[in-house]
């Protein structure tokens, strides 16, 4: 590995750039430097778990109909930031959020904002699959039911959602069976289907593909591209190729150890158009990280 950063820089960048042009590249060239019409914004976001300062001063803008990837080493606070965006951190005992997160200009941490309403608009897919101990059908139908969505045919909606998550063919004959009979990958795709079914405005994904095989991953990636025309997507991923393939913009985080306590606080290093960030990172740490991938 000691030799690889060097190796990397000499390697042709073609496949990656090829990917970008072929998939996410359509408007990459014309993409403004910052999202002009941000659906969500984080301003001076700080998160604490008890005394532990997990995330420090994060500023981000998430553009409408864009896919934003959050990348960075393990423990740098990506999941933490993501959970702040739909107030899931409210449910973590001891977690405290400072700063503001706006959604269509409205700070979702204001008084008078209903976190539940926030979550119906900002859906989430988790790192570990967490299907409900119900049938596959009921897992999908759950969201529409609890949010009181008006649905013509629940069967159709379930089918659409499952097709969307590339799971329909595998489960169509066992919709009434428990979701726990599925493999890890199938379970995660079910969770994605479940989120799609509630038709949110923004979808947060915390390493949604980390348990998926390449075929399913690429279906999900395709799906994200399709959804992008209607939805705003924010994805945490460890897979830089994935970030490069699907996202319009990428935010790179890292963790900085406090010299005295040794606590590692997460911070945002660089936030830019994906193409720029990968091809021409402005920060040394970003470059090291990206090149380290191919050690």
């Amino acid at each position, binding site marked *: 590995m000691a030799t690889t950063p060097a190796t990397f820089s000499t390697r042709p960048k073609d496949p990656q750039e090829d990917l970008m042009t072929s998939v996410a590249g359509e408007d990459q060239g014309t993409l403004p430097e910052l999202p002009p019409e941000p659906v969500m914004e984080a301003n001076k976001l700080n998160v604490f778990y008890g005394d532990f300062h997990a995330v420090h001063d994060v500023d981000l803008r998430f553009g409408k109909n864009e896919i934003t990837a959050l990348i960075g080493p393990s423990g740098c606070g990506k999941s933490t930031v993501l959970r702040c965006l739909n107030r899931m951190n409210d449910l973590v005992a001891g977690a405290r959020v400072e700063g503001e997160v706006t959604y269509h200009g409205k700070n*979702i941490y204001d008084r008078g904002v*209903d976190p539940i309403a926030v979550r119906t608009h900002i859906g989430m897919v988790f790192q570990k699959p967490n299907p409900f101990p119900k049938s596959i059908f009921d897992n999908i139908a759950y969201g529409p039911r609890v949010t009181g969505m008006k649905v013509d045919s629940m069967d159709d909606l379930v089918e*659409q959602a499952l097709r969307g998550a590339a799971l329909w063919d595998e489960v169509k004959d066992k919709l009434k069976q428990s979701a726990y009979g599925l493999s890890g990958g199938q379970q995660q795709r079910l969770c994605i289907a479940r989120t799609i079914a509630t*038709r949110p405005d923004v979808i947060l994904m915390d390493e949604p593909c980390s348990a998926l095989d390449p075929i399913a991953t690429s279906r999900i990636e395709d799906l994200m591209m399709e959804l992008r025309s209607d939805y705003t997507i924010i994805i945490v991923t460890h897979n830089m190729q994935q970030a490069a393939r699907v996202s319009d913009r990428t935010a790179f985080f890292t963790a900085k150890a406090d010299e005295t306590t040794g606590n590692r606080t997460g911070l945002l290093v660089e936030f830019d158009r994906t193409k720029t960030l990968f091809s021409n990172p402005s920060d040394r740490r970003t470059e090291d990280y990206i090149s380290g991938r191919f050690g």
Partner: protein
Amino acid sequence: MSVASTTAREVTASVVATGRSRDRTPRSLIFLALLWFSLFFGVMVLVALIVDTAIQGAGRFDAALITDYSSRVRPETTGFRAGIIGSLWLMAFTALMAVPLGIAAALYLEEFADKDRWYNRLIELNLQNLAAVPSIIYGLLAVAVMALIGFQQTGIVLGGAIALALLILPVIIITTREAVRSVPQDIRQGSLALGATVWQTTWRQTLPSAVPGIATGTILGLSRAIGEAAPLIVVGLAGSLLFSPTGVLSPITALPMQIYSLTSQSQAELREAASAAIIVLLVMILGLNALAIFIRNKFQRSW
């Protein structure tokens, strides 16, 4: 792909800031109110009961109540020393017998037994059923057990403890099983994959994780045992003693027996003393529960 047809919602800022939380819809509020009521109903009854009893026993909250032996000659200063000490002895020996046995049985059923075997299912069924057997029957059974192991004299510490241990064994087993069952499978697999035996896994991983649940079950069981009179009467425990036990073969009495006996007496002084003694019994149960809370908080985990 068909998803294209699933369009996003039209969104404006006002949607999330309607000022009305979906946790505050009328339905949710009614639901919450019902839950509150459920919880405080029990608490209210408990308070009513304690206050009612305390008022009836108000004249007898004195030292003699716990330091003196019972007296009919001086009913206004009768005490429950023998019953209190007896109940403490009984609890100690009951726990000593029932807790290890109960945990052992529960661990076997959850961690070792093949649940599809008919005999293990039989044990399972049998356990739930035992919980429903009237306590007095356990008294009869304890008498038989005492005869079987060769004790002529039944009204002693050992006999009472056997009756109570038999009585609470099913409760302890059932609750321990639930506690053990809720320990995630991941933990067991991780341990077994390191080459731990089933017993090592059980002893070092499952059991410590299940301690809060086991403590709850044990305390529930002991709280029940400490208030039981009927099986002890059948076992021949004394209603009146003027000395304290010195060993497992000593004659013994128990607080609830004394209470039960006195509540049906004609003299108002004795009934007043019984009411005060009920409060003493409740304090003892409170002590047990405090112990349970301590254990539960010390070991509670979430995963």
